């Protein structure tokens, strides 16, 4: 199983955890994060989300996050799958697994990864809510923005 992927298929946290744990004889910790589609956003009742990606660049951006995390926590390894297409309420849109010798780096790498996903991965949510639809727009994606990267790092280590 690829450790980094953008896929239209439902996500499988167990399988991704197994994939990263396979070569983890030196690891004492695996931290996981699952992002779910929720039924409300900014006062709107959400029906479902449609995710769109610039797929080749999204995969590269995810790989860049893996590289960045490895530089900061050399003993940590990351795996990330982002789902795109129509995703129903309660279904997972992203899963992240981080393995490390000790829990601190596993948690930090996992948190760093989701913060960076929201900053630099070219994926967009098209929210379908009761009464309409809207494209959600968050961060201006710039992988060279050191301030944004450090903000993610600080949150990860808080």
């Amino acid at each position, binding site marked *: 199983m690829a450790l980094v992927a953008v896929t239209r298929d439902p996500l499988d946290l167990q399988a991704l955890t197994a994939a990263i744990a396979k070569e983890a004889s030196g690891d004492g910790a695996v931290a996981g994060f699952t992002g779910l589609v929720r039924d409300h956003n900014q006062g709107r009742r959400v029906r479902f989300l449609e*995710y769109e990606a*610039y797929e080749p660049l999204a995969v*590269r951006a995810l790989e860049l996050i893996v590289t960045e995390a490895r530089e900061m926590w050399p003993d940590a390894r990351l795996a990330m799958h982002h789902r795109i297409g129509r995703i129903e309420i309660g279904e997972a849109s992203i899963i992240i697994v981080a393995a490390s010798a000790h829990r601190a780096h596993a948690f930090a790498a996992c948190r760093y990864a989701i913060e960076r996903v929201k900053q630099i*991965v070219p994926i967009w949510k098209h929210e379908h809510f009761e009464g309409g639809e809207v494209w959600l*727009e968050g961060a201006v994606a710039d992988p060279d923005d050191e301030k944004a990267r450090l903000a993610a790092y600080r949150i990860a280590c808080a």
Partner: protein
Amino acid sequence: MRVTVRLFARLRDLAGAGELVREVEAPATVQTVWKALTAEMPSLVQYESTMSVAVNAEYAKMAAAVRDGDEVAFLPPVSGG
């Protein structure tokens, strides 16, 4: 020379297409392609200060050179996760 323009999310909706092929004069940069595009579709201009750009699926700057056959992408602020 000929370039493929890719547009995503709301930019794609505003343009009415996610992929366009356009002729631009060489030498060209991402800026050249954007100027040609916004001359044709003025509603896209609202993204000028908040979009990111990519050339051949790599993040790039507006001043980056664009060559014949390149794919130039314009990306609104992202909202993954």
